[in-house]
């Protein structure tokens, strides 16, 4: 057994998993309130990554930043959160709200259109090339925390810590604040919430803002640890984030966190071991297959996810 590899894979898995968890939270919150699958959610992440990249370039680039590195990272994340949040609100306002009473399939098709539009707009404006955060110039790869023989790069720790902090913040927001209460009430029964004097539209807008801000932040985190970004990156993260939300139990915050880490680890392990296990017949590109199988198995065996409650059909 190769322990170094194992630890390395765990670290990779947790990093990836924290990103998935952030994406899953956005999916989960929106689905909880609107029962709508926001297919454009992954593209918000992509836009967040591009905003972070823009801020990085504007503040001097990775080699020669004009502010302290920590401040730079904070500014990148904040800008991406604000940008992502407003993008999410715009998507809700223009693509989903007019369709609240349309046939169920209409908002999904609208979401497909939004996703396609955003991706191709970025392609139009920035081209198909991968853009790099050049994170190794930003923070030297040697800087990190040592675990046994292994050195964990500090940016990975930053990513995990940032994701964790945001999830905790969201947890407090949902369980402790008035807005959180309104969100839960709206998710439970929109009509009843409206009759109790909750401005449902505002709650929905805020939900979109928060969920999309998390996705925007996730985009910057992806750029920081995995380096390169492009217009199509949102697709994969969206799929995995959704899988994480389903595995954890859609609508549940701890579920989204747990599901994200689970999917991240599953992907990291299958990337690491699939070649050995299949004697080289399947390459690491097939790690998606493993995640897909997890999704299908969960949908068949436990569609409500690990933390979810089974839904009662309303007749």
């Amino acid at each position, binding site marked *: 057994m190769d322990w170094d590899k194992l630890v390395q894979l765990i670290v990779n898995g947790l990093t990836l998993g924290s990103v998935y968890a952030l994406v899953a939270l956005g999916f989960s919150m929106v689905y909880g309130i609107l029962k709508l699958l926001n297919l454009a959610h992954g593209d918000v992440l992509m836009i967040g990554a591009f905003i972070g990249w823009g801020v990085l370039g504007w503040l001097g680039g990775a080699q020669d930043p004009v502010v302290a590195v920590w401040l730079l990272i904070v500014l990148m994340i904040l800008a991406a959160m604000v940008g992502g949040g407003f993008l999410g609100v715009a998507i809700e306002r223009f693509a989903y709200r007019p369709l609240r009473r349309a046939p169920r399939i209409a908002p999904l098709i609208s979401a497909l259109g939004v996703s396609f539009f955003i991706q191709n707009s970025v392609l139009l404006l920035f081209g198909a090339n991968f853009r790099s955060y050049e994170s190794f110039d930003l923070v030297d790869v040697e800087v990190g925390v040592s675990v046994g023989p292994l050195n964990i790069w500090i940016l990975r720790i930053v990513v995990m810590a940032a994701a964790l902090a945001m999830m905790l913040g969201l947890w407090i927001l949902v369980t402790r604040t008035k807005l959180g209460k309104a969100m839960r009430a709206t998710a439970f029964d929109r009509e009843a919430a409206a009759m109790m004097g909750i401005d449902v539209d505002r709650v929905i807008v805020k939900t979109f803002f928060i969920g999309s801000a998390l996705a925007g932040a996730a985009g910057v985190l992806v750029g920081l640890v995995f380096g390169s970004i492009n217009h199509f990156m949102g697709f994969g993260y969206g799929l995995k984030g959704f899988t994480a939300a389903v595995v954890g139990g859609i609508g549940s915050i701890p579920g989204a966190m747990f599901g994200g880490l689970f999917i991240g680890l599953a992907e990291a392990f299958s990337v690491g071991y699939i070649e050995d296990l299949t004697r080289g017949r399947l390459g690491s590109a097939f790690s998606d297959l493993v995640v897909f199988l997890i999704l299908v198995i969960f949908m068949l065996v436990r569609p409500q996810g690990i933390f979810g*409650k089974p839904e009662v*059909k309303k*007749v």
Partner: protein
Amino acid sequence: MTSDALHGPLLDIRGLSLSFGGLRVLDELDFAVGEREIVSVIGPNGAGKTTLFNVITGVYPPEAGDVLFDGASIVGLDPHKIARRGIARTFQTLRLFLNMTVKENVMAAAYGHTRAGIVRSVLRTPGMRREEREIGQLAEDRLAFFGDRLVGYRWGQPAYSLSYANRRRLEIARATAANPRLLLLDEPAAGMNPVETNEITELISRLREEGGFTILVIEHDMHVVEGISDRVVALDHGVKIAEGTYERVATDPRVVEAYLGTSAIEDT
């Protein structure tokens, strides 16, 4: 098609229990409905009446107990299989195929007793065409049951264009087109005006006389219940609190208590 009294009741519910999140919705419920009987289920809101229909039709699996239809257990069967055995229902909340025409709504319910598959449908075999003619005729007959309300030009109209009362009628027509032996009617008179309510009362009796259906009906309107029922079953919190003729059940102190609360009893 007949199973007379010797073979036992058409529908036999034994010890049926179900709870949602700790709340007991049906509690050890027992009762039976005989062939060609009309039985009403009454009870205050939340007594478990619609849940009972959902368990009978297979929407929810019960936690305990059994549902026997024509002597055989139907628990665990897919809802469409239960429907094919001869149980059809209407919905309290009206669940029509809104964007299909009135006639199509009724024809669609004949799916269970028609055969033509994809190949025969596309080849338009004589058998398939005969079947289509037959269910077209069946739909027209079932719709004609309501006098001139749902005939003629109405056939081609989308279901969403119908008035509320006509939607209720269409639901009944659709249920009968599945050729059931047992018809479950969930509040057929809800939201109707007094004239329409009288009509419904008459209609339910005619359904048995002319259609030969056995009918289990949930109803709040006591005039309707009085007018149609051979027997009445009263539920409260999922428990059967009374059963018998309308007069017996309507005057049963527990039923009165369930409807009006304990204080009403004490005051009198």
